């Protein structure tokens, strides 16, 4: 069934199909629409879930962890300050191996206050142990919502899943979206089964302490779990394509990269404009390509080094900065290349902070700049007279 939906609404439709049993969420712009839709679905009976009106984001995730420990499928959603407020629980959910799914509407972090989209909220939590996916459009958002539980609940993985949607640009933009039918969704995603739960036949002590002798082993296994998500993502997408007919490309999505000399590596909704710009440049015989990172964790080390191997230069375009260093995505991409001994020239382009526009001209300039060589870290339009207008 096709419907005209915003990113938030599409995600909510995906969650309805995933049949979570407990939803706990606290409102924050620009996430609110997804929890409003879900509460409506609970009200009208089309989603049979406990909707818990928690009093904070910390409680939202703490409640979801409790529900997951009870063996229930749990969902929450947040953004920005809310994600930071629940940060303690992010690590807790990952360490306890609870396959909770959370939608994060990527938004700027205070100060100064700002409600618009950048990716500094989720990228600051890369080390929390969550799988991190970044959607580009509403259809992908919906499909991710459905696939996320299959990946997170995979026995080898057992890791919570954060699906990131660019605030406003994706969460509030309407597109035509295909909603899978209920029977097919149920065939794709069976009910959650786990041993990592409260059990009245064989009682359990959970979320315990572990001293120096075993703590390290628990952490190692947590790492193995999220690494196992690489295969689970590929397998899940394959089965998804068989049932629903839409194909996804794993941890990255490459566009005209086979013969590309200059490649922009980016994530989220800006990738579309990058592809359009690459097309345009190719008309002028500039061999431009785009790599969209779909998953920041587990990180696509091999995929990145493979695709950048033959390029002359690449630029990492990101809505993030790790103050005192550079963009975090840039750091990660460089590390992927370094590990394979490749020495392709790379540049960092930071832009879009606090929702500031990144234009086609900005992107075109990235391609032409890196062809000539430029500063290692660049701030798009900073100091410009138009202030991004």
């Amino acid at each position, binding site marked *: 069934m096709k419907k005209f939906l915003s990113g938030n609404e599409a995600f909510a439709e995906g969650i309805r199909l995933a049949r979570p049993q407990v939803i706990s969420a606290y409102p924050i712009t620009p996430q609110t629409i997804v929890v409003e839709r879900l509460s409506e679905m609970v009200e009208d009976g089309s989603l049979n879930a406990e909707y818990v009106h928690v009093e904070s984001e910390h409680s939202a995730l703490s409640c979801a962890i409790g529900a997951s420990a009870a063996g229930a499928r749990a969902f929450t959603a947040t953004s920005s300050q809310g994600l930071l407020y629940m940060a303690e629980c992010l690590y807790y959910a990952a360490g306890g191996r609870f396959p909770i799914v959370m939608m994060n509407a990527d938004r700027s972090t205070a100060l100064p206050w700002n409600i618009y989209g950048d990716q500094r909220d989720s990228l600051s939590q890369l080390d929390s142990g969550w799988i991190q996916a970044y959607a580009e459009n509403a259809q992908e958002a919906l499909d991710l919502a459905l696939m996320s539980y299959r990946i997170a609940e995979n026995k080898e993985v*057992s890791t919570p899943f954060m699906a990131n949607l660019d605030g406003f640009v994706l969460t509030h933009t309407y597109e035509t979206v295909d909603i899978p039918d209920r029977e097919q969704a149920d065939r794709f995603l069976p009910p959650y089964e786990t041993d990592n739960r409260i059990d009245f036949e064989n*009682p*359990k*002590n*959970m979320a*315990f302490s572990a001293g120096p002798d*075993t703590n390290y082993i*628990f952490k190692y296994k947590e790492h193995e779990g999220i690494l196992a998500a690489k295969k689970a993502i590929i397998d899940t997408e394959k089965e998804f394509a068989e049932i629903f007919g839409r194909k996804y490309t794993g941890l990255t999505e490459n566009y005209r990269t086979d013969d590309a000399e200059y490649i922009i590596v980016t994530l989220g909704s800006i990738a579309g404009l990058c592809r359009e710009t690459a097309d345009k440049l190719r008309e002028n015989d500039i061999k431009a390509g785009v790599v969209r990172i779909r998953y920041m964790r587990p990180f696509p080390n091999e995929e990145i080094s493979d695709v950048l191997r033959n390029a002359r230069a690449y630029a990492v375009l990101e809505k993030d900065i790790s103050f005192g260093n550079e963009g975090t995505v840039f750091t990660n991409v460089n590390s992927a290349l370094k590990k394979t001994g490749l020495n392709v020239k790379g540049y960092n382009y930071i832009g879009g902070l606090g929702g500031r526009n990144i234009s086609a001209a900005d992107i075109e300039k990235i391609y032409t700049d890196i062809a000539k060589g430029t500063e290692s870290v660049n701030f798009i339009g900073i100091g410009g007279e138009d202030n991004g207008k």
Partner: protein
Amino acid sequence: MRPYIREKKSFTFDEVPENTCFEAGYLTTVNSGWRSIRPAVNSEKCVGCEQCYLYCPDGVIAINDGKAVIDYDFCKGCGICAKICRIGAIEMEAERK
């Protein structure tokens, strides 16, 4: 039924669970080494009123055949039982090393 001491006390890499979820009531160490004094029940005097049983923070007292019996593996020697006993049936003695 109460948590009890298990044979298996240490865990190799493969035996450490994948998640923080494990069998409830799994004990590997006792608490007897904590004591400098120990409660001694005078069975002649004990009337099995269960005051000591109810007030023991460690739950180490059970009433067996109407008399208080102490699990010395887990008694820490706090002395609450001796103090709570209205008829003086429990006395604290120096721990025998």
